[in-house]
């Protein structure tokens, strides 16, 4: 280990090189970040819902933070290079600079307002579902998604988690007349939605937390036992999409995928009318 101590004479030069190297590396990080972002190799999956405003907000945020990131790193790299210690150099005694500090705070404040004000404006739409939205229930359990449609009356019947058993997996209150025409899609089944129509998803969970996540829709909402959580979306593209679980829910978490089919209104109606209603499937248990 003697050489470590022998390294002392060239230590000064090596030390100065450190600053230049760190400056170069800081700039490299910025360049790579910009190139990767612009190239779009890894970017949001193609949008398939009305939530383009979320993408816009994300891009605004990316620009504002990107400018800050580039600015800070360029300043850092310049200072590291420019003020690296050399023979006979002295630092300037400069404990504060009120005007500079004030301007930096004002500038940062403006950046924050640019982000949060439109963000909250979009959010107010995000949590206000349209009155005419189609209501569909999502029910989660380890590690499946199942769904319930309101049927002809447009109303989901009452449920009670205490009623859940093998014959009544949704815990449906069969005494409720609104339950009779509900349509149940059993665990592992597909969620069908009409294109261009707002849908309000009412989410429940039987056991632990899960999270209903469709990357192309940009939406994500936890399902919580004991609660009904809500999120709304208007699918804008037809096709098949994956439903992923985004909240750790046990060993099958990574494998809790479902499928979602967005189709035209007529196809959707045709599919829906082909599904048996509660009174048809559970008629026997009703008595």
């Amino acid at each position, binding site marked *: 280990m003697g050489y*470590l101590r022998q390294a002392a004479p060239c*230590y000064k030069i090596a030390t100065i090189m*450190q600053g230049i190297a*760190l400056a170069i*590396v800081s700039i490299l990080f910025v360049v790579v970040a910009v190139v*990767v972002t612009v190239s779009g*190799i*890894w*970017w*949001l*999956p193609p949008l398939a819902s009305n939530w383009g*405003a*979320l993408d816009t907000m994300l891009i605004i945020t*990316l620009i*504002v*933070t990107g400018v*800050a*990131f580039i600015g800070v*790193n360029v300043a850092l790299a310049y200072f590291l290079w420019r*003020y*690296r*210690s050399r023979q006979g*150099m*002295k*630092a*300037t*005694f*400069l*404990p504060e*600079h009120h005007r500079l*500090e004030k301007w*930096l*705070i004002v500038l*940062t404040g403006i950046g*924050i307002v640019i982000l949060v004000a439109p*963000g909250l404006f*979009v*959010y107010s739409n995000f*949590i206000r579902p349209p009155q005419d939205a189609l209501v569909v229930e999502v029910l989660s359990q*380890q590690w499946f998604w199942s769904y319930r449609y309101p049927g002809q009356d447009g109303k989901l019947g009452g449920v009670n*988690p*205490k009623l*859940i058993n093998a014959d009544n997996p949704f815990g449906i209150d069969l005494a409720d007349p609104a339950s009779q025409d509900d349509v149940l899609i059993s665990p592992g089944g597909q969620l069908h939605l009409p294109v261009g129509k707002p849908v309000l998803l009412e989410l429940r969970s*039987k*056991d*632990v937390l899960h999270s209903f996540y469709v990357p192309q829709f*940009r*939406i*994500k909402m936890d*399902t*919580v*036992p*004991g*609660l009904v959580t809500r999120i709304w979306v208007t699918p804008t593209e037809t096709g098949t999409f994956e439903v*992923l679980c*985004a909240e*750790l829910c046990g*060993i099958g*978490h*990574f494998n809790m995928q479902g499928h979602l089919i967005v189709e035209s209104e007529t196809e959707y109606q045709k599919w829906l009318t082909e599904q048996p209603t509660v009174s048809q499937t559970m008629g026997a248990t009703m008595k």
Partner: protein
Amino acid sequence: MAQPASKDEVHVEHTGHHEPTSLWSKYIFSQDHKVIALQYTITALLVGGVGMVFSWLIRLQLGFPGQFSFIQPENYLQFVTQHGMIMVVYLLTALLLGGFGNYLIPLMIGARDMAFPFLNMLSYWTYLISVILLFVGLWDATGAGWTLYPPQSALPGASPGAEWGIRFMLISLAVFVASATMGGLNYVTTVLQARAKGMTLMRMPLSVWGIFVAAALALLAFPALFVGGVMLLLDNMAGTSFFIPVVNLFGRQLGHEGGNPILFQHLFWYFGHPEVYIVILPAMGIVSDIIANRARKPIFGYKAMILSILAIGGISFVVWAHHMFVSGMNPYFGYWFAVATLAIAIPSAVKTYNWLLTLWKGNLHFSTAMLYAIGFVSTFVAGGLTGLFLGNIVVDVPLTDTYFVVGHFHLVMGVSAIFGIFAGIYYWFPKACGRMMSEAMGKIHFWVTFIGAYLIFFPMYWLGFSGVPRRYYSFSGIDTLPPSLNGLNAFMTVVALVVGAAQLVFAFNLIWSAIKGKKASANPWQATTLEWQTPTTPPPHGNWGPNEPIVYRWAYDYSVPGADEDYIPQTVDGVPARAGAKR
């Protein structure tokens, strides 16, 4: 007593407790803050090593799925849970408060020891018990994630290890809270009551300020974890229903009723968010002092730095539910928590500007400590800016629970805090051990770790944009995700292993330098602060010998115009008075 007072007796008068003579009381059950600091540091580093091994196991599965048959989903989730808990609580919190807090507070404020030395000793041994309890729990899987969300964590059968794995973890956390409370009370009291003559609050080094505010946050935040943990343990073991509503698990009704899972999340994050700052504020303070010293320049905007520490500390208690934007809580909460969260960016930005402006017109010396301090600023910015995505609800919704979040918190509080720790260790090692650390090994350690950290965590942002969910054992069969994900994951895993190997260089450097390192002078960095003005290095029991230091100036009189040297220690009175005396 006819005999002249021995050195010991003079000493006892000042410290209030005897200098220990036996090996046992000197190194094991010591009440000396410096020994306790080293005990905390060594224990936390070893525990952190275990946490790092867990991160390798996680990475092996992600990089080379299916290649390692011993990593099954239940082990994988155990590694994820233990890695998170160990790193946040048992490494970062313990090392920054217990290690640096203990070492630096008395030395930097000119005290002879902590206000309550016995309590201090008890704090360490309680911490050690909590570590042992955590490790005993390793035989069971513990797969609920470090956030321990019920019902999964409370229902045996819902999750691997929801029996003894979780129970040991909860009991260990409760013990840790007891330890952190004893420590926190000590740190806060010592800073308020035991400062040397002339050491006003507005003359304290920022390291002390950061640790002081972090200790206060810990005292206010940890009780929420304690309460949540106790209730969760009761739900788990005694069948209560604090957090468990009616639940049907695999077709079985469990008999719980009336609880609310979201309540736990509020309690957890009421602790969990300040916890982020409990970890980062001491690191910020340490980095501020090192940058000022190595730039040979006063820290820029000292008062603004203190105000932003206080602002961050205060606001950190009212932002917690930004972790819960899609949890199903009342959606109107979102407005407040988004605004408060983005507001906290302002004091954080002020700190970043001030570090940069301290470098501006400085005389920069790139020792390893300085490299890590600058590394801290770099990763804090790279990680902190993405907080502006996650704090703004509508941007958070697509990104939350994806790798974007993993990249964000690893850079901003994991890597940054660790860099703060490394900077501090390279900087204060000569004082603690009386020998210099090897700069050559230090630089190898820095460059591999710094570049490696970026290569591991930076790509995670783009994975997050692509929608890759976190805490997934495997991504096979998911068509939405980009296929290039696998190659990238393998690359990140290889880098993680290389970075891990670099930590062995660090460990070797610590041991080698402690034994064979170059003898350190009393003040090798030519620093102004009190810990470098002790009569001997390492400082003696009681720190100051017969005379306690008197403080005449602030901690940052570097390159004062008209002074002969480019630093004036805080203990120097008089000329040139211009800069220091009025502060």
